Protein backbone atom coordinates (compact mmCIF):
# COMPACT_ATOMS: atom_id res chain seq x y z
CA UNK A 1 0.00 0.00 0.00
CA UNK A 2 1.35 3.35 -1.00
CA UNK A 3 2.03 6.14 1.46
CA UNK A 4 1.42 8.81 -1.16
CA UNK A 5 -1.41 11.16 -0.27
CA UNK A 6 -4.56 10.23 -2.09
CA UNK A 7 -5.25 13.85 -2.92
CA UNK A 8 -2.74 16.62 -3.47
CA UNK A 9 -3.75 20.20 -4.00
CA UNK A 10 -1.02 22.60 -5.11
CA UNK A 11 -1.33 26.40 -5.21
CA UNK A 12 -5.00 26.22 -5.93
CA UNK A 13 -6.65 29.58 -6.54
CA UNK A 14 -10.30 30.26 -7.20
CA UNK A 15 -11.80 33.63 -8.08
CA UNK A 16 -15.40 34.78 -8.01
CA UNK A 17 -15.47 38.05 -9.85
CA UNK A 18 -12.97 40.14 -7.94
CA UNK A 19 -13.06 38.01 -4.83
CA UNK A 20 -10.28 35.51 -4.13
CA UNK A 21 -12.16 32.60 -2.62
CA UNK A 22 -9.04 30.44 -2.52
CA UNK A 23 -5.54 31.88 -2.53
CA UNK A 24 -2.78 29.47 -3.46
CA UNK A 25 -3.98 26.71 -1.19
CA UNK A 26 -1.83 23.62 -0.92
CA UNK A 27 -2.98 20.55 0.89
CA UNK A 28 -2.27 16.83 1.08
CA UNK A 29 -4.92 14.36 2.12
CA UNK A 30 -3.30 11.20 3.51
CA UNK A 31 -4.83 7.84 2.68
CA UNK A 32 -7.03 6.01 5.14
CA UNK A 33 -7.31 8.92 7.47
CA UNK A 34 -10.04 11.33 8.43
CA UNK A 35 -8.92 14.81 7.48
CA UNK A 36 -11.02 17.75 8.59
CA UNK A 37 -11.20 21.16 7.01
CA UNK A 38 -12.34 23.96 9.26
CA UNK A 39 -12.48 27.72 9.21
CA UNK A 40 -14.90 30.60 9.71
CA UNK A 41 -17.69 31.30 7.26
CA UNK A 42 -16.36 32.40 3.93
CA UNK A 43 -12.98 30.84 4.55
CA UNK A 44 -13.22 28.83 1.36
CA UNK A 45 -13.90 25.33 2.66
CA UNK A 46 -16.83 24.56 0.37
CA UNK A 47 -15.05 26.26 -2.49
CA UNK A 48 -12.13 23.92 -2.01
CA UNK A 49 -14.45 20.94 -2.10
CA UNK A 50 -16.11 22.30 -5.21
CA UNK A 51 -12.82 22.94 -6.96
CA UNK A 52 -11.51 19.48 -6.14
CA UNK A 53 -14.68 17.70 -7.26
CA UNK A 54 -15.10 19.58 -10.51
CA UNK A 55 -17.97 21.82 -9.51
CA UNK A 56 -15.98 24.96 -9.92
CA UNK A 57 -13.09 25.80 -12.15
CA UNK A 58 -9.85 26.87 -10.48
CA UNK A 59 -8.14 29.94 -11.81
CA UNK A 60 -4.75 28.41 -11.12
CA UNK A 61 -3.14 25.45 -9.44
CA UNK A 62 -3.45 21.70 -9.72
CA UNK A 63 -5.40 18.91 -8.14
CA UNK A 64 -3.81 15.46 -8.24
CA UNK A 65 -5.91 12.50 -7.25
CA UNK A 66 -4.35 9.07 -7.08
CA UNK A 67 -1.57 10.25 -9.31
CA UNK A 68 -3.91 11.71 -11.92
CA UNK A 69 -4.30 15.41 -12.69
CA UNK A 70 -7.99 16.12 -12.27
CA UNK A 71 -7.81 19.90 -12.13
CA UNK A 72 -10.27 20.42 -14.93
CA UNK A 73 -12.60 17.47 -14.89
CA UNK A 74 -16.35 17.98 -15.28
CA UNK A 75 -18.31 17.30 -12.09
CA UNK A 76 -19.75 14.00 -13.19
CA UNK A 77 -16.31 12.52 -13.67
CA UNK A 78 -15.38 12.77 -10.02
CA UNK A 79 -17.12 9.56 -9.02
CA UNK A 80 -15.62 7.86 -12.04
CA UNK A 81 -12.12 8.50 -10.79
CA UNK A 82 -12.99 7.40 -7.28
CA UNK A 83 -14.07 10.48 -5.35
CA UNK A 84 -17.56 11.35 -4.09
CA UNK A 85 -18.96 14.26 -2.13
CA UNK A 86 -22.06 15.55 -0.36
CA UNK A 87 -23.46 19.06 -0.41
CA UNK A 88 -24.07 21.59 2.29
CA UNK A 89 -27.71 22.07 1.39
CA UNK A 90 -28.58 18.42 1.58
CA UNK A 91 -29.71 17.95 -2.00
CA UNK A 92 -31.63 14.89 -1.00
CA UNK A 93 -34.18 13.85 -3.64
CA UNK A 94 -37.26 14.82 -1.69
CA UNK A 95 -39.90 13.17 -3.83
CA UNK A 96 -38.06 9.88 -4.15
CA UNK A 97 -38.06 7.18 -1.53
CA UNK A 98 -35.15 6.56 0.79
CA UNK A 99 -34.24 3.41 -1.12
CA UNK A 100 -34.42 5.21 -4.46
CA UNK A 101 -32.13 7.92 -3.17
CA UNK A 102 -29.46 5.44 -2.15
CA UNK A 103 -29.99 3.34 -5.28
CA UNK A 104 -28.90 6.31 -7.35
CA UNK A 105 -25.58 6.14 -5.58
CA UNK A 106 -24.73 3.12 -7.71
CA UNK A 107 -23.47 4.42 -11.00
CA UNK A 108 -23.38 2.42 -14.20
CA UNK A 109 -26.44 0.32 -13.51
CA UNK A 110 -27.51 -1.73 -16.55
CA UNK A 111 -31.11 -0.73 -15.88
CA UNK A 112 -30.12 2.82 -16.75
CA UNK A 113 -28.79 1.93 -20.14
CA UNK A 114 -31.58 1.78 -22.66
CA UNK A 115 -30.00 -0.87 -24.84
CA UNK A 116 -29.57 -3.23 -21.93
CA UNK A 117 -32.95 -2.41 -20.50
CA UNK A 118 -34.73 -3.54 -23.63
CA UNK A 119 -32.40 -6.06 -25.23
CA UNK A 120 -31.26 -8.03 -22.18
CA UNK A 121 -34.20 -7.60 -19.85
CA UNK A 122 -33.65 -10.69 -17.74
CA UNK A 123 -30.01 -10.02 -17.02
CA UNK A 124 -30.86 -6.41 -16.32
CA UNK A 125 -33.55 -7.39 -13.90
CA UNK A 126 -31.20 -9.68 -12.02
CA UNK A 127 -28.56 -6.96 -11.83
CA UNK A 128 -31.19 -4.52 -10.62
CA UNK A 129 -32.23 -6.84 -7.82
CA UNK A 130 -28.64 -7.32 -6.77
CA UNK A 131 -28.21 -3.56 -6.60
CA UNK A 132 -31.38 -3.20 -4.56
CA UNK A 133 -30.04 -5.82 -2.18
CA UNK A 134 -26.81 -3.86 -1.77
CA UNK A 135 -28.89 -0.76 -1.14
CA UNK A 136 -30.90 -2.54 1.53
CA UNK A 137 -27.66 -3.65 3.18
CA UNK A 138 -26.41 -0.09 3.34
CA UNK A 139 -29.70 1.15 4.74
CA UNK A 140 -29.52 -1.51 7.42
CA UNK A 141 -25.99 -0.46 8.23
CA UNK A 142 -26.82 3.21 8.75
CA UNK A 143 -30.10 2.45 10.49
CA UNK A 144 -32.58 3.72 7.89
CA UNK A 145 -34.01 0.36 6.86
CA UNK A 146 -37.33 0.87 8.59
CA UNK A 147 -37.82 3.98 6.44
CA UNK A 148 -36.91 2.25 3.21
CA UNK A 149 -40.16 2.99 1.41
CA UNK A 150 -40.81 6.41 2.90
CA UNK A 151 -40.36 9.47 0.77
CA UNK A 152 -37.23 11.36 1.67
CA UNK A 153 -39.35 14.42 2.42
CA UNK A 154 -40.96 12.51 5.29
CA UNK A 155 -37.66 12.06 7.08
CA UNK A 156 -36.41 14.25 9.88
CA UNK A 157 -33.48 16.51 9.16
CA UNK A 158 -31.08 14.19 10.94
CA UNK A 159 -32.37 11.21 9.00
CA UNK A 160 -31.93 13.07 5.75
CA UNK A 161 -28.34 13.78 6.62
CA UNK A 162 -27.87 10.10 7.31
CA UNK A 163 -29.40 9.45 3.92
CA UNK A 164 -26.73 11.52 2.20
CA UNK A 165 -24.07 9.51 4.02
CA UNK A 166 -25.72 6.26 2.92
CA UNK A 167 -25.86 7.48 -0.65
CA UNK A 168 -22.20 8.30 -0.58
CA UNK A 169 -21.36 4.86 0.79
CA UNK A 170 -23.18 3.38 -2.18
CA UNK A 171 -20.77 5.04 -4.58
CA UNK A 172 -18.02 2.86 -3.14
CA UNK A 173 -15.61 5.71 -3.79
CA UNK A 174 -12.20 5.62 -2.22
CA UNK A 175 -12.27 9.27 -1.20
CA UNK A 176 -15.42 10.50 0.47
CA UNK A 177 -15.86 14.20 1.11
CA UNK A 178 -18.57 15.50 3.41
CA UNK A 179 -19.69 19.11 3.35
CA UNK A 180 -21.12 20.10 6.72
CA UNK A 181 -22.71 16.77 7.60
CA UNK A 182 -23.07 17.91 11.18
CA UNK A 183 -24.82 21.21 10.54
CA UNK A 184 -28.01 21.58 12.52
CA UNK A 185 -27.79 18.18 14.20
CA UNK A 186 -28.22 17.36 17.87
CA UNK A 187 -25.42 15.58 19.73
CA UNK A 188 -26.49 11.94 19.29
CA UNK A 189 -26.86 12.30 15.55
CA UNK A 190 -23.47 13.95 15.41
CA UNK A 191 -21.79 11.03 17.08
CA UNK A 192 -23.69 8.60 14.92
CA UNK A 193 -22.23 10.30 11.88
CA UNK A 194 -18.80 10.58 13.39
CA UNK A 195 -18.83 6.86 14.14
CA UNK A 196 -19.88 6.03 10.61
CA UNK A 197 -17.07 8.17 9.24
CA UNK A 198 -14.50 6.39 11.35
CA UNK A 199 -15.89 3.04 10.24
CA UNK A 200 -15.33 4.08 6.65
CA UNK A 201 -11.73 4.92 7.41
CA UNK A 202 -11.31 1.58 9.15
CA UNK A 203 -12.59 -0.12 5.98
CA UNK A 204 -9.77 1.42 4.00
CA UNK A 205 -11.39 4.56 2.67
CA UNK A 206 -10.25 8.14 3.07
CA UNK A 207 -12.61 10.75 4.47
CA UNK A 208 -12.48 14.52 4.21
CA UNK A 209 -14.79 16.33 6.57
CA UNK A 210 -15.70 19.98 6.20
CA UNK A 211 -17.59 21.22 9.19
CA UNK A 212 -18.12 24.00 11.71
CA UNK A 213 -18.94 21.74 14.55
CA UNK A 214 -15.90 21.52 16.78
CA UNK A 215 -17.28 18.62 18.78
CA UNK A 216 -17.45 16.51 15.69
CA UNK A 217 -14.15 17.63 14.25
CA UNK A 218 -12.03 17.43 17.39
CA UNK A 219 -13.44 14.07 18.40
CA UNK A 220 -13.14 12.24 15.13
CA UNK A 221 -10.48 13.78 12.89
CA UNK A 222 -6.94 12.48 12.53
CA UNK A 223 -5.68 15.70 11.05
CA UNK A 224 -7.14 19.17 10.71
CA UNK A 225 -6.42 21.92 8.21
CA UNK A 226 -7.63 25.42 9.03
CA UNK A 227 -8.62 27.85 6.30
CA UNK A 228 -9.16 31.57 6.63
CA UNK A 229 -9.82 34.07 3.86
CA UNK A 230 -8.97 31.45 1.27
CA UNK A 231 -5.60 30.54 2.75
CA UNK A 232 -4.29 27.72 4.89
CA UNK A 233 -3.35 29.14 8.27
CA UNK A 234 -2.72 26.01 10.30
CA UNK A 235 -2.47 22.28 10.01
CA UNK A 236 -1.95 19.43 12.43
CA UNK A 237 -3.56 17.06 14.88
CA UNK A 238 -6.59 18.27 16.82
CA UNK A 239 -4.36 18.94 19.84
CA UNK A 240 -1.93 21.01 17.83
CA UNK A 241 -4.63 22.97 16.08
CA UNK A 242 -6.52 23.65 19.25
CA UNK A 243 -3.54 25.32 20.81
CA UNK A 244 -2.28 27.08 17.68
CA UNK A 245 -2.26 30.84 18.35
CA UNK A 246 -3.28 31.83 14.82
CA UNK A 247 -6.30 29.56 15.05
CA UNK A 248 -7.28 30.87 18.43
CA UNK A 249 -6.93 34.35 17.05
CA UNK A 250 -9.27 33.68 14.17
CA UNK A 251 -11.88 31.92 16.23
CA UNK A 252 -11.86 33.66 19.54
CA UNK A 253 -10.87 37.24 19.13
CA UNK A 254 -14.15 37.78 17.30
CA UNK A 255 -16.79 35.57 18.80
CA UNK A 256 -18.38 34.27 21.90
CA UNK A 257 -20.42 31.46 20.47
CA UNK A 258 -20.54 27.89 19.37
CA UNK A 259 -17.29 27.86 17.42
CA UNK A 260 -15.47 27.68 20.75
CA UNK A 261 -13.23 24.65 20.91
CA UNK A 262 -14.41 22.39 23.69
CA UNK A 263 -12.06 20.51 25.98
CA UNK A 264 -13.65 17.30 24.73
CA UNK A 265 -12.48 13.75 24.19
CA UNK A 266 -9.06 13.25 22.63
CA UNK A 267 -8.58 13.50 18.88
CA UNK A 268 -9.58 10.61 16.71
CA UNK A 269 -6.97 7.93 16.65
CA UNK A 270 -8.40 4.70 15.32
CA UNK A 271 -9.77 3.72 18.66
CA UNK A 272 -12.49 6.36 18.70
CA UNK A 273 -15.92 4.89 18.23
Amino acid at each position, binding site marked *: MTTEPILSVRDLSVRFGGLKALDRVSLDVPRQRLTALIGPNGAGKSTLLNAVSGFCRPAAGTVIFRGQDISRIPPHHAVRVGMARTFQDLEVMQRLTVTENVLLGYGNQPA*ERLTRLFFTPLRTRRAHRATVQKTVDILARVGL*LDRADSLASELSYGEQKLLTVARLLATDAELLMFDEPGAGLPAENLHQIGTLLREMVAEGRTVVLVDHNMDLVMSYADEITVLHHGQVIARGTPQEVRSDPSVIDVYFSRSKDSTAVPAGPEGGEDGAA
Partner: protein
Amino acid sequence: MTYALTLLTFFCIAIILAMSLNLVMGYTGRVSVAHGGFMAVGAYGTAWFAINAEMNLVWAMLVGAAVAGVVGWIFGAATARISGDEFILASFALQMVLIEMISRWASVTRGTYGLSGIPRPVLFGQRLSDVESFAAFVVVVTLLCGAFVLRLGHSTFGLALRGVRESERSMQALGRNTTSLKAVAFVIASCLAGIAGGLQASMVSFIHPDNFGVMVSIIVIAYLLVGGLGSMLGAALGAVMLLSIPEVIAATDWIPTNLLGPLERVLYGLALILFVWLRPQGLLPERPILNVARMRRRGLVTIPDPQEVTR
Protein backbone atom coordinates in the same frame (compact mmCIF):
# COMPACT_ATOMS: atom_id res chain seq x y z
CA MET B 1 -69.28 2.51 -34.97
CA THR B 2 -67.19 4.53 -37.37
CA TYR B 3 -67.53 7.47 -35.06
CA ALA B 4 -66.43 5.46 -32.04
CA LEU B 5 -63.41 4.08 -33.88
CA THR B 6 -62.45 7.51 -35.15
CA LEU B 7 -62.69 8.78 -31.61
CA LEU B 8 -60.56 5.88 -30.46
CA THR B 9 -57.76 6.82 -32.84
CA PHE B 10 -57.81 10.40 -31.59
CA PHE B 11 -57.66 9.14 -28.04
CA CYS B 12 -54.67 6.98 -28.92
CA ILE B 13 -52.82 9.86 -30.53
CA ALA B 14 -53.49 12.00 -27.47
CA ILE B 15 -52.25 9.23 -25.19
CA ILE B 16 -48.98 8.95 -27.07
CA LEU B 17 -48.53 12.71 -26.87
CA ALA B 18 -49.28 12.84 -23.15
CA MET B 19 -47.09 9.91 -22.16
CA SER B 20 -44.16 11.17 -24.18
CA LEU B 21 -44.36 14.69 -22.79
CA ASN B 22 -44.53 13.16 -19.34
CA LEU B 23 -41.00 11.91 -19.82
CA VAL B 24 -39.81 15.47 -20.16
CA MET B 25 -42.20 17.28 -17.85
CA GLY B 26 -43.15 14.74 -15.22
CA TYR B 27 -39.91 12.82 -14.96
CA THR B 28 -37.20 15.29 -15.89
CA GLY B 29 -39.17 18.23 -14.55
CA ARG B 30 -38.77 20.55 -17.54
CA VAL B 31 -41.81 22.35 -18.85
CA SER B 32 -41.87 22.28 -22.64
CA VAL B 33 -44.42 23.95 -24.87
CA ALA B 34 -42.78 22.61 -28.01
CA HIS B 35 -44.60 19.29 -28.21
CA GLY B 36 -46.96 20.54 -30.88
CA GLY B 37 -43.97 21.51 -32.95
CA PHE B 38 -42.44 18.04 -32.74
CA MET B 39 -45.75 16.52 -33.66
CA ALA B 40 -45.72 18.80 -36.70
CA VAL B 41 -42.22 17.72 -37.69
CA GLY B 42 -43.30 14.10 -37.47
CA ALA B 43 -46.49 14.76 -39.39
CA TYR B 44 -44.85 16.69 -42.20
CA GLY B 45 -41.87 14.37 -42.33
CA THR B 46 -44.16 11.39 -42.61
CA ALA B 47 -46.24 13.14 -45.24
CA TRP B 48 -43.27 14.11 -47.33
CA PHE B 49 -41.72 10.67 -47.37
CA ALA B 50 -45.01 8.94 -47.94
CA ILE B 51 -46.01 11.19 -50.81
CA ASN B 52 -42.76 12.22 -52.48
CA ALA B 53 -40.59 9.24 -51.77
CA GLU B 54 -43.59 6.97 -52.04
CA MET B 55 -42.66 5.10 -48.92
CA ASN B 56 -45.04 2.85 -47.14
CA LEU B 57 -46.52 4.96 -44.41
CA VAL B 58 -45.13 2.69 -41.75
CA TRP B 59 -41.56 3.50 -42.81
CA ALA B 60 -42.43 7.10 -43.50
CA MET B 61 -43.65 7.41 -39.94
CA LEU B 62 -40.42 6.02 -38.58
CA VAL B 63 -38.43 8.44 -40.69
CA GLY B 64 -40.67 11.30 -39.62
CA ALA B 65 -40.16 10.31 -36.01
CA ALA B 66 -36.43 10.14 -36.57
CA VAL B 67 -36.40 13.67 -37.97
CA ALA B 68 -38.36 14.87 -34.96
CA GLY B 69 -35.86 13.03 -32.79
CA VAL B 70 -32.92 14.77 -34.41
CA VAL B 71 -34.49 18.16 -33.84
CA GLY B 72 -35.21 17.10 -30.26
CA TRP B 73 -31.63 16.02 -29.80
CA ILE B 74 -30.18 19.29 -30.99
CA PHE B 75 -32.60 21.31 -28.93
CA GLY B 76 -32.36 19.13 -25.82
CA ALA B 77 -28.60 19.26 -25.82
CA ALA B 78 -28.30 22.94 -26.65
CA THR B 79 -30.66 23.88 -23.86
CA ALA B 80 -29.41 21.48 -21.21
CA ARG B 81 -27.78 24.28 -19.24
CA ILE B 82 -30.81 26.57 -19.36
CA SER B 83 -32.72 27.00 -16.15
CA GLY B 84 -36.33 25.90 -15.89
CA ASP B 85 -37.98 29.26 -16.47
CA GLU B 86 -35.91 30.12 -19.46
CA PHE B 87 -36.32 26.61 -20.82
CA ILE B 88 -40.05 27.27 -21.12
CA LEU B 89 -39.32 30.34 -23.18
CA ALA B 90 -36.79 28.48 -25.29
CA SER B 91 -39.27 25.70 -25.98
CA PHE B 92 -41.83 28.35 -26.83
CA ALA B 93 -39.42 29.92 -29.29
CA LEU B 94 -38.72 26.51 -30.79
CA GLN B 95 -42.41 25.80 -31.16
CA MET B 96 -42.92 29.05 -33.03
CA VAL B 97 -39.82 28.57 -35.16
CA LEU B 98 -40.91 25.07 -36.20
CA ILE B 99 -44.44 26.11 -37.09
CA GLU B 100 -43.29 29.25 -38.87
CA MET B 101 -40.73 27.28 -40.85
CA ILE B 102 -43.35 24.79 -41.91
CA SER B 103 -45.75 27.58 -42.82
CA ARG B 104 -43.21 29.47 -44.90
CA TRP B 105 -41.47 26.60 -46.62
CA ALA B 106 -44.40 26.27 -48.93
CA SER B 107 -42.48 24.58 -51.71
CA VAL B 108 -42.11 21.51 -49.53
CA THR B 109 -45.01 21.71 -47.11
CA ARG B 110 -47.51 23.71 -49.14
CA GLY B 111 -47.49 26.08 -46.17
CA THR B 112 -50.79 27.56 -45.17
CA TYR B 113 -52.66 25.79 -47.95
CA GLY B 114 -52.23 22.58 -46.04
CA LEU B 115 -50.96 19.30 -47.29
CA SER B 116 -53.36 16.66 -48.48
CA GLY B 117 -53.19 13.21 -49.93
CA ILE B 118 -51.36 11.49 -47.12
CA PRO B 119 -51.95 7.79 -47.69
CA ARG B 120 -52.84 5.06 -45.28
CA PRO B 121 -50.27 2.40 -44.50
CA VAL B 122 -50.00 -0.80 -46.45
CA LEU B 123 -49.65 -3.84 -44.20
CA PHE B 124 -49.26 -7.38 -45.45
CA GLY B 125 -50.25 -6.24 -48.91
CA GLN B 126 -53.43 -4.53 -47.73
CA ARG B 127 -53.96 -0.81 -47.64
CA LEU B 128 -55.66 0.10 -44.38
CA SER B 129 -58.20 2.44 -45.92
CA ASP B 130 -61.14 1.54 -43.78
CA VAL B 131 -61.72 2.81 -40.28
CA GLU B 132 -61.58 -0.58 -38.58
CA SER B 133 -58.20 -1.71 -39.84
CA PHE B 134 -56.58 1.68 -39.40
CA ALA B 135 -57.95 1.93 -35.88
CA ALA B 136 -56.46 -1.46 -35.11
CA PHE B 137 -53.13 -0.27 -36.49
CA VAL B 138 -53.23 2.86 -34.36
CA VAL B 139 -54.12 0.88 -31.26
CA VAL B 140 -51.21 -1.49 -31.83
CA VAL B 141 -48.78 1.39 -32.33
CA THR B 142 -50.13 3.07 -29.21
CA LEU B 143 -49.76 -0.07 -27.16
CA LEU B 144 -46.19 -0.49 -28.33
CA CYS B 145 -45.31 3.12 -27.57
CA GLY B 146 -47.14 2.95 -24.27
CA ALA B 147 -45.39 -0.21 -23.19
CA PHE B 148 -42.05 1.26 -24.18
CA VAL B 149 -42.57 4.44 -22.25
CA LEU B 150 -44.00 2.66 -19.24
CA ARG B 151 -41.00 0.35 -19.06
CA LEU B 152 -38.69 3.30 -19.44
CA GLY B 153 -40.41 5.22 -16.71
CA HIS B 154 -40.51 2.36 -14.30
CA SER B 155 -36.82 1.59 -14.57
CA THR B 156 -33.67 3.02 -13.07
CA PHE B 157 -33.44 5.18 -16.16
CA GLY B 158 -36.73 6.80 -15.19
CA LEU B 159 -35.41 7.08 -11.67
CA ALA B 160 -32.32 8.83 -12.96
CA LEU B 161 -34.50 11.35 -14.80
CA ARG B 162 -36.43 12.02 -11.61
CA GLY B 163 -33.12 12.38 -9.85
CA VAL B 164 -32.14 15.09 -12.30
CA ARG B 165 -35.42 16.82 -11.57
CA GLU B 166 -34.95 16.67 -7.83
CA SER B 167 -31.30 17.60 -7.63
CA GLU B 168 -29.20 17.94 -10.72
CA ARG B 169 -26.09 18.71 -8.69
CA SER B 170 -26.41 15.50 -6.76
CA MET B 171 -26.82 13.49 -9.92
CA GLN B 172 -23.64 15.00 -11.27
CA ALA B 173 -21.89 14.27 -8.00
CA LEU B 174 -23.10 10.71 -8.37
CA GLY B 175 -21.46 10.38 -11.73
CA ARG B 176 -24.33 11.02 -14.17
CA ASN B 177 -23.94 13.15 -17.25
CA THR B 178 -27.10 15.14 -16.71
CA THR B 179 -26.85 16.96 -20.03
CA SER B 180 -26.92 13.63 -21.78
CA LEU B 181 -29.82 12.36 -19.68
CA LYS B 182 -31.90 15.42 -20.42
CA ALA B 183 -31.11 15.21 -24.10
CA VAL B 184 -32.01 11.52 -24.31
CA ALA B 185 -35.34 12.12 -22.56
CA PHE B 186 -36.06 14.90 -24.97
CA VAL B 187 -35.17 12.83 -28.02
CA ILE B 188 -37.43 9.99 -27.00
CA ALA B 189 -40.27 12.38 -26.27
CA SER B 190 -39.82 14.12 -29.62
CA CYS B 191 -39.72 10.86 -31.55
CA LEU B 192 -42.93 9.71 -29.96
CA ALA B 193 -44.56 13.07 -30.62
CA GLY B 194 -43.43 12.61 -34.21
CA ILE B 195 -45.11 9.22 -34.36
CA ALA B 196 -48.30 10.77 -33.03
CA GLY B 197 -48.00 13.37 -35.77
CA GLY B 198 -47.53 10.70 -38.40
CA LEU B 199 -50.60 8.84 -37.20
CA GLN B 200 -52.64 12.01 -37.28
CA ALA B 201 -51.43 12.80 -40.77
CA SER B 202 -52.46 9.43 -42.06
CA MET B 203 -55.72 9.42 -40.14
CA VAL B 204 -57.06 12.66 -41.54
CA SER B 205 -54.95 12.57 -44.72
CA PHE B 206 -54.71 16.35 -44.53
CA ILE B 207 -52.47 18.48 -42.31
CA HIS B 208 -52.12 22.18 -41.77
CA PRO B 209 -49.69 24.13 -39.58
CA ASP B 210 -52.57 25.33 -37.40
CA ASN B 211 -53.17 21.72 -36.33
CA PHE B 212 -49.91 21.80 -34.39
CA GLY B 213 -49.81 25.27 -32.87
CA VAL B 214 -48.81 26.24 -29.37
CA MET B 215 -52.37 25.59 -28.28
CA VAL B 216 -51.80 21.90 -28.94
CA SER B 217 -48.71 21.99 -26.76
CA ILE B 218 -50.68 23.57 -23.98
CA ILE B 219 -53.49 21.06 -24.33
CA VAL B 220 -51.01 18.23 -23.86
CA ILE B 221 -49.72 19.97 -20.74
CA ALA B 222 -53.32 20.13 -19.55
CA TYR B 223 -53.59 16.34 -20.07
CA LEU B 224 -50.61 15.88 -17.78
CA LEU B 225 -51.87 18.27 -15.14
CA VAL B 226 -55.24 16.60 -14.96
CA GLY B 227 -53.93 13.07 -15.03
CA GLY B 228 -50.99 13.60 -12.73
CA LEU B 229 -47.53 14.83 -13.63
CA GLY B 230 -45.04 12.03 -13.29
CA SER B 231 -47.46 9.17 -13.66
CA MET B 232 -47.55 7.49 -17.06
CA LEU B 233 -50.97 5.99 -16.49
CA GLY B 234 -52.07 9.38 -15.22
CA ALA B 235 -50.95 10.94 -18.47
CA ALA B 236 -53.07 8.51 -20.44
CA LEU B 237 -56.00 9.07 -18.13
CA GLY B 238 -55.74 12.83 -18.39
CA ALA B 239 -55.69 12.62 -22.16
CA VAL B 240 -58.80 10.48 -22.29
CA MET B 241 -60.65 12.64 -19.80
CA LEU B 242 -59.90 15.96 -21.39
CA LEU B 243 -60.51 14.72 -24.90
CA SER B 244 -63.91 13.45 -23.86
CA ILE B 245 -65.10 16.92 -22.98
CA PRO B 246 -65.31 18.38 -26.47
CA GLU B 247 -66.89 15.18 -27.68
CA VAL B 248 -69.56 15.43 -25.05
CA ILE B 249 -70.23 19.02 -25.97
CA ALA B 250 -70.28 18.31 -29.67
CA ALA B 251 -72.75 15.52 -29.06
CA THR B 252 -75.25 17.94 -27.51
CA ASP B 253 -76.66 20.01 -30.32
CA TRP B 254 -77.26 23.37 -28.81
CA ILE B 255 -73.88 24.97 -29.47
CA PRO B 256 -73.46 26.56 -32.88
CA THR B 257 -70.59 24.90 -34.73
CA ASN B 258 -68.57 28.05 -35.14
CA LEU B 259 -68.39 28.41 -31.37
CA LEU B 260 -67.41 24.82 -30.69
CA GLY B 261 -63.73 25.58 -31.10
CA PRO B 262 -63.55 28.50 -28.71
CA LEU B 263 -65.81 26.78 -26.20
CA GLU B 264 -63.65 23.70 -26.24
CA ARG B 265 -60.62 25.83 -25.59
CA VAL B 266 -62.35 27.65 -22.76
CA LEU B 267 -62.95 24.28 -21.16
CA TYR B 268 -59.31 23.30 -21.56
CA GLY B 269 -58.36 26.57 -19.96
CA LEU B 270 -60.80 25.90 -17.13
CA ALA B 271 -59.46 22.40 -16.63
CA LEU B 272 -55.97 23.84 -16.46
CA ILE B 273 -56.75 26.44 -13.85
CA LEU B 274 -59.02 24.21 -11.81
CA PHE B 275 -56.42 21.52 -11.52
CA VAL B 276 -53.58 23.91 -10.83
CA TRP B 277 -55.69 25.55 -8.16
CA LEU B 278 -57.32 22.59 -6.51
CA ARG B 279 -55.31 19.53 -7.31
CA PRO B 280 -51.94 20.40 -8.75
CA GLN B 281 -50.69 16.87 -8.31
CA GLY B 282 -53.37 15.64 -10.69
CA LEU B 283 -55.50 12.57 -10.39
CA LEU B 284 -52.92 9.83 -10.16
CA PRO B 285 -49.89 10.12 -7.91
CA GLU B 286 -46.34 9.50 -8.99
CA ARG B 287 -45.26 6.00 -8.01
CA PRO B 288 -41.78 5.00 -6.86
CA ILE B 289 -40.05 2.52 -9.12
CA LEU B 290 -39.63 0.00 -6.36
CA ASN B 291 -41.06 -0.96 -3.02
CA VAL B 292 -38.77 -2.78 -0.62
CA ALA B 293 -41.56 -4.22 1.52
CA ARG B 294 -43.11 -5.78 -1.53
CA MET B 295 -39.81 -7.11 -2.79
CA ARG B 296 -39.22 -8.66 0.59
CA ARG B 297 -42.57 -10.40 0.51
CA ARG B 298 -41.73 -11.83 -2.88
CA GLY B 299 -38.35 -13.02 -1.67
CA LEU B 300 -36.42 -10.76 -4.02
CA VAL B 301 -34.41 -9.09 -1.28
CA THR B 302 -33.45 -10.20 2.17
CA ILE B 303 -32.99 -8.14 5.28
CA PRO B 304 -29.50 -8.62 6.62
CA ASP B 305 -28.97 -9.85 10.16
CA PRO B 306 -28.00 -6.98 12.47
CA GLN B 307 -24.79 -8.78 13.47
CA GLU B 308 -23.68 -9.31 9.91
CA VAL B 309 -24.08 -5.69 9.07
CA THR B 310 -20.97 -4.18 10.60
CA ARG B 311 -18.61 -5.70 7.96
